[in-house]
C-alpha cells in the first residue's frame, strides 16, 4: 500500500495472538464453579434451616438442658433412651403406624390410579376429588375428623348405632383395634388388650390413609402415563390381558414409582406429627403431648412431649437424633430390598 503524502508513516503492527481454546480441565472447572454458584442460594437455605439445626440439635443432646443449658453429660441422654421403655414404646408405635398406613395408602392409591387410567368420563373430577384432602390443611381436617370420631356426638358412632352395632370410644379407646366388635359403651375406658394398635391409633391411621391416598394416586397416574404403549400393545398381542398384564407388565414397570413412594411415605409416616397431635393427643383435650395411656404417642409426639411439655431439651434432642438414624436405616433397607427390583422400560 502506498503511503499517503503528508501522513505519518505506518508502524508495523504485529499480528494478534491466536485464541487458544480452554483446556478441557479449565472448562470443567469453570462449569463446575458456575454450577455451584447457581446452587448457592439453595445450599444456604438448606444449610441454615436443615443442616445447622440438625448439628445444633446434636450439640444440645450432649447436655442436660432444661430451660437453660446445664451440665455436659456426653452420651448419657442416649444411654437413658436405650433403657427408657416409653421411648421404646413410641418407636414401636411408629413402626406399627408405618406398617399399618403406608402399604394400605400405596395399594389404594395404585388401585385408584389404575381405575382412573381407564379413560373414564369425568376423570379430571375424580382426580381432583381424591387429591383434595392432600392439599387441605392437616390441622383443619384433623379437627373435623376429631368430631367425626367423638364418642358421644360423632357421626361414626351415629352410623354404628344406625346399623345396631355398639358405639366405640374411637380416639378415647385404648383397647386394641382387634377388639372393636366387643360389647363396649362409647366414651368408657375399659380393660384393653395390650397389643398395638389401639383403636385410637387405628382411627388415626385411617385418617392418615385417607389423607395421603390422593397423592399416591396422582403419582401413580403419572407413572402409568410413562409406560410406553408399545410395551403394553406387544404384551396384548402375546395374549396378556387383565391381571396377567398388570402382573407381568404394568406393575414391574411401575416399580420406580413404587420405590419412590415407599421411601417418601415411610419417611413421612415415621415423622408424622400434625394428624397424630390433633387427634391423638396434645392441647387441652388430652394433655400436652399424648392421650391417656399413650397408645398414640408415636416418636414425633414423644419428642414434642419431652421437648415442649416436659422441657427436657437435651433428652428430646437425643431422641430426635436416634429417630433420624432409625429413618436412615429404614431408607437403606428400602433401597436394598426394593431398589434392586426396580425395572425400567428401556
Amino acid at each position: 500500500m502506498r503511503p499517503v503524502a503528508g501522513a505519518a508513516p505506518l508502524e508495523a503492527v504485529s499480528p494478534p495472538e491466536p485464541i487458544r481454546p480452554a483446556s478441557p480441565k479449565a472448562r470443567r472447572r469453570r462449569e463446575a464453579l458456575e454450577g455451584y454458584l447457581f446452587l448457592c442460594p439453595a445450599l444456604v437455605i438448606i444449610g441454615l434451616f436443615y443442616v445447622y439445626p440438625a448439628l445444633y440439635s446434636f450439640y444440645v443432646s450432649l447436655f442436660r438442658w432444661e430451660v437453660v443449658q446445664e451440665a455436659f453429660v456426653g452420651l448419657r441422654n442416649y444411654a437413658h433412651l436405650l433403657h427408657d421403655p416409653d421411648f421404646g414404646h413410641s418407636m414401636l408405635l411408629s413402626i406399627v403406624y408405618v406398617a399399618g398406613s403406608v402399604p394400605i395408602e400405596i395399594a389404594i392409591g395404585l388401585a385408584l390410579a389404575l381405575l382412573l387410567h381407564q379413560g373414564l368420563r369425568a376423570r379430571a373430577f375424580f382426580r381432583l376429588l381424591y387429591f383434595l384432602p392432600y392439599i387441605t390443611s392437616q390441622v383443619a381436617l384433623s379437627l373435623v375428623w376429631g368430631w367425626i370420631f367423638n364418642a358421644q356426638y360423632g357421626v361414626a358412632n351415629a352410623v354404628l348405632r344406625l346399623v345396631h352395632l355398639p358405639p366405640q370410644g374411637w380416639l378415647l379407646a385404648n383397647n386394641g383395634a382387634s377388639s372393636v366388635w366387643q360389647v363396649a359403651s362409647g366414651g368408657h375406658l375399659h380393660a384393653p388388650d395390650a397389643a398395638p394398635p389401639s383403636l385410637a391409633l387405628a382411627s388415626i391411621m385411617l385418617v392418615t390413609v385417607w389423607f395421603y391416598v390422593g397423592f399416591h394416586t396422582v403419582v401413580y397416574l403419572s407413572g402409568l402415563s410413562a409406560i410406553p404403549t408399545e410395551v403394553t400393545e406387544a404384551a396384548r398381542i402375546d395374549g396378556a390381558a387383565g391381571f396377567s398384564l398388570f402382573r407381568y407388565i404394568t406393575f414391574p414397570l411401575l416399580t420406580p414409582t413404587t420405590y419412590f413412594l415407599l421411601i417418601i411415605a415411610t419417611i413421612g409416616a415415621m415423622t408424622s406429627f400434625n394428624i397424630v397431635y390433633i387427634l391423638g393427643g396434645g392441647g387441652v383435650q388430652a394433655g400436652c403431648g399424648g392421650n391417656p395411656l399413650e397408645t398414640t404417642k408415636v416418636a414425633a409426639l414423644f419428642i414434642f412431649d419431652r421437648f415442649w411439655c416436659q422441657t427436657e431439651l437435651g433428652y428430646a434432642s437425643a431422641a430426635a437424633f436416634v429417630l433420624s438414624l432409625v429413618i436412615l436405616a429404614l431408607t437403606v433397607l428400602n433401597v436394598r430390598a426394593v431398589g434392586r427390583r426396580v425395572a425400567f422400560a428401556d
Partner: protein
Amino acid sequence: MVRFRLTSLGMVLLLAACGAQPNSSTASTAAPEEAVTITFWHGQSGVLGQRLQALVDQFNSTHKIHVNASFEGSYTSGQLQQKIVAAIQAGTPPDLAQVPGPADAAQFVKANAVTPVQQFVDSPDGFSASQLKDFYGPFLDDNRLVVKGKKELVSWPLSKSVSVLYYNPTIVQQAGVSSPPRTWDQFQQDLLAVKRSTSAVPLEWTPDLYYFWAAYMRGNGGDILSGSLDKAAFNNDKGIAALQYEANLVLSDKTAVVTKGFDWQNDFANGKVAYSVSTSVSLPYIEQAMPASGKFQIGEASLPAGSVKAGNTLFGNNLLIFNKAPQNHQRAAWLFMKWLTDTDQTVAWALASGYLPLRTSGLNSPTYQQKVAADPRLSVPLAAVSSGAEGVQASADWNKIQPILNDMVIAALAGRKTPQQAVSDAADKVNTILSGY
C-alpha cells in the same frame, strides 16, 4: 449563723429519712412512678382476654406506666409456657408474664430467670405485715418457693380457683340424697343411690391426678412428693387407697363414666349427670352449655373430706417478673401487679372471670357481697380455700412428673394395672426423674 441553721436542717431531714419504716407502703415514702412501657404476656383468650385487657386499659389510663399486654397462648395447655421457655433461651423474655403455678415458677427460678417479688413486697412499694394478711394465706403460700435456701415470695397470685363438686339437685333429690357428701364414703353411697333410683349417670368427669386422686390422698394426710421435693411420697397405703377408691367407682360400682377434655360438661349441662368434679371456674361454661329449655340451678360444694381435711386443690395462675428486665421495668411490673390485685380490681376480675377474689377485703366488699347474696354459691370455693386447699408442690420437675401421675390414674381406671402396681410403677419413674439421672 445561717449556714449553721441550714446544716442543722439538713441533718434533721437526713435523720428523718433514715428513720422511715422500710416496710410502710405509704405514698410519701415510695418513689414516684416512672413513665415506662412494660411487656406483659398472658394466657387468657376470648372473653377473659378482653376483660383482662379492659383492666389493663384502665391501669394505663390512670398511671404513667404503660402496660403492653398480649395473649401468647393458652396457659392451661402449655402454649404460654413454651413461648416463655423459648424467649428465655433467646434472651428476650417479657418483663412480666402469667405462669400456671408454682411448679413453672420453680423451673424459671432454677434457670435464674426470675426476680422474686419478695424484695418488692418488702420495699416502700410493698405491703406491711398487716396489709399482707388481707390476702388469703393459701394464695400467697402457693407463690412461696425456696430460693437460695430461704422460702420467699417468688411470684404473685392473679387468678385462683379451687376444685369443687358440681351436682344436679333434681337428680340427687330424686335419689333421696338431701345434701352434698361430706366424706368420700358418703359420696360413694350417694353415687350408688343415684344409680339405683334414677336413669342418670351418677358421676361423669375427666380424671387426672387432681380430680380426685390427690384430693382424696391429701384429705387423708398424704402427699405427692416429700417435703424436700426429692422423692415420691405417695407410694404407700394412702396413695394406693386413693387410687383404689376411684377405680372402684369406675370398675366395680360402675357409677362413674370417664370422658376426655371438657366433654363431660355437655352431658352435665343437658341434665344427664348427677355429679361432676372440676374447678370453680367451670360454672359459667356449664351454664352456657345448657339448652334453653333445660336450664337448672347447678349445685356446688366442696370436695368430700378425708380423715384430716377436704383435700381441695388450688388452680389458676400467678404473675412473675423476669430479671432480664431493667430495674425500672421490674418496679413498674410490680406496681402493675399490686394495682391489679388491689381490692377493687381483684373483685372486678373475680366477677368478670369466675376466679376468686384474692383478699378478704374483696370478699367483704359491698360489690362482691351483693353478688354473694344473689348467688350463695360464690362463697363455696372460698370456704373450700379456707378449709385447707393447696396447690401443686413447687418442684421444678413437676411438668415431667405430672404426666406419669396422670397415666397412673388412667391405667388403674382402665383396669390395665391394679392400683398398687400403678402406684408402684409411677413412684419408680418419679424417683428416677427426681434423682436427675
